[in-house]
């Protein structure tokens, strides 16, 4: 009896609590995951967020609508244009302004370029998460060209403050369209090269295929959106389902996960949907560049933004998913309440659902495939 007790005390195998982050190479920022592990197997994950909370919503209650735009930039710093665009769309809905054609086209071109840039970072860092370093530098190299374009456009490379409620801050610089088309010509073969290097690599497929399957109904129930949900085969893209701006004028497909390397909705599908989306974005940019009308981009910018009493929920398909801005106006130039529905916030909440039962390495791969940006989660 006593021996048994001793044996039990010596051989007792308990769970180990592992603090992944907030300072960890693969949590994409200051995310902390409290992981309960049994050996390598993860039995429970508790995401702890808020390390990057910058009181965005509180700030909004003290700033006029124009002043909020730079703050939205800093929410999703990898897709700042999308945040500007999403906020501007919500405010324009509140103001009920009619935009010049040219503004809409410019916005679409910029937004799709931004989508490519953001997906490049997502794919590159996903490669880093599973241990491949070279795809990251290749992705960053191509993203650099987009940032050069943006620099020519508005002078900034990361936080643009370019899309304003009612218009855009500058018209396109000379030769911008040509340079964009040049970039697309350069970029198309790069995607193939990227696929050769990473997407179809046997080890990569072993690491991501069948791993962390997100069933479609679970995804919708958790509010997962964007490429992460489309990887599960759900045809849900606001650009198609609820066309905002002028997306209904363009011909493009919504890539869906097909389970090519395993089950539908696995990590590989979520990854590959982003690769395909870059091609679709390029398609949209080509069409928009071909149809770009002339006009004044500043003519619809209101002198003073002072919406009537009311509220609006503006929705936007950003690189990470469904961005929503819930704005309550009390008739002043400062909003009463701005609530941002951040897509990565909802996408991250599904992590503990799909990653439990996998190994530590898989948790990192799954987290990488959800493509979170902590600036947007914590706001």
């Amino acid at each position, binding site marked *: 009896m006593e021996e048994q007790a001793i044996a039990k005390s010596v051989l007792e195998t308990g769970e180990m609590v592992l603090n992944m982050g907030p300072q960890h190479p693969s949590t994409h920022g200051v995310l902390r995951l409290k992981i309960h592990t049994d050996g390598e197997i993860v039995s429970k994950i508790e995401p702890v*967020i*808020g390390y990057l*909370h910058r*009181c965005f*919503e*509180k700030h909004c*209650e003290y700033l006029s609508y124009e002043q909020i735009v730079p703050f939205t930039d800093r929410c999703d710093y990898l897709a700042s244009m999308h945040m500007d665009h999403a906020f501007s769309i919500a405010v324009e809905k509140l103001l009920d302004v009619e935009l010049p054609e040219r503004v809409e086209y410019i916005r679409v071109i910029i937004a799709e370029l931004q989508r490519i840039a953001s997906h490049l970072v997502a794919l590159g860092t996903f490669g880093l998460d599973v241990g491949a370093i070279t795809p990251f530098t290749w992705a960053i190299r191509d993203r650099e060209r987009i940032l050069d374009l943006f620099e020519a456009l508005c002078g900034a490379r990361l936080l643009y403050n370019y899309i304003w409620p009612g218009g855009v801050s500058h018209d396109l610089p000379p030769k911008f369209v040509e340079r964009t088309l040049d970039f697309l010509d350069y970029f198309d073969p790069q995607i193939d090269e990227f696929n050769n290097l990473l997407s179809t690599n046997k080890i990569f497929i072993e690491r991501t295929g069948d791993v962390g399957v997100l069933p479609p*109904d*679970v995804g*919708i*129930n*958790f*509010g997962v959106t964007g490429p992460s949900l489309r990887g599960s085969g*759900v045809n*849900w893209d606001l650009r198609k*389902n*609820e066309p905002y701006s002028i997306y209904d004028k363009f011909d493009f497909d919504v890539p869906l996960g097909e389970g090519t390397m395993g089950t539908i909705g696995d990590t590989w599908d979520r990854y590959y949907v982003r690769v395909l989306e870059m091609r679709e974005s390029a398609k949209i940019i080509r069409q928009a560049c071909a149809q770009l009308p002339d006009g004044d981009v500043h003519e619809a910018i209101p002198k003073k933004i002072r919406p009537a009493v*009311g*509220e609006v*929920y503006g*929705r936007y398909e950003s690189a990470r998913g*469904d961005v*929503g801005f*819930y704005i*309550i106006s009390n008739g002043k130039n400062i909003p*009463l*309440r701005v*609530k941002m*529905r951040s897509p990565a*916030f*909802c996408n991250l*909440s*599904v992590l503990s*659902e799909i990653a439990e039962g996998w190994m530590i390495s898989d948790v990192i791969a799954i987290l990488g495939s959800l493509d979170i940006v902590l600036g947007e989660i*914590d*706001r």
Partner: protein
Amino acid sequence: MTFADIIKFVETKAAGKSSIIEGKEVILVSPDNWVEISTLLKNESKLDFDYLMCISSYDKGDNKTYGAAYNLFSTTINHYLEVRVETEDGTAIPSVTGLWQAADWHEREAFDMMGLQFEGHPNLKRILLSEDWDGYPLRKDYKEPDYYRGMPVPKDKTYWD
């Protein structure tokens, strides 16, 4: 379905449990009826609001009425609905985490920022702010504390310029 159709349908299933806010396409539900209405919205196959997009908490400004706006969408039928639940004097709102898992973090955020209480939430604690934070920052009557854990909070903001 359009907003009018949805209202009509909800009225036939649960008469008098909800009201329409004047001049807006928004349903107002009291916390007492919210369980019934939310179950109806989620589970009724003609409505099928399977996607809870956002829960936004708001402050009416009279220091006692707080509300939560639920933005619902149906991915199968493609219709949209905004529901508001308003509470007075700190009455708890029934949690909808059982229906939409997405509500879990959104309700925690509403609790964290606006101090809304959600009854039946499995893990209602602060999400963005630290556990030991005092007060609910997005309430209109929130005052910046002078000290946080013994550290003085800078009040003089002239040097910010």
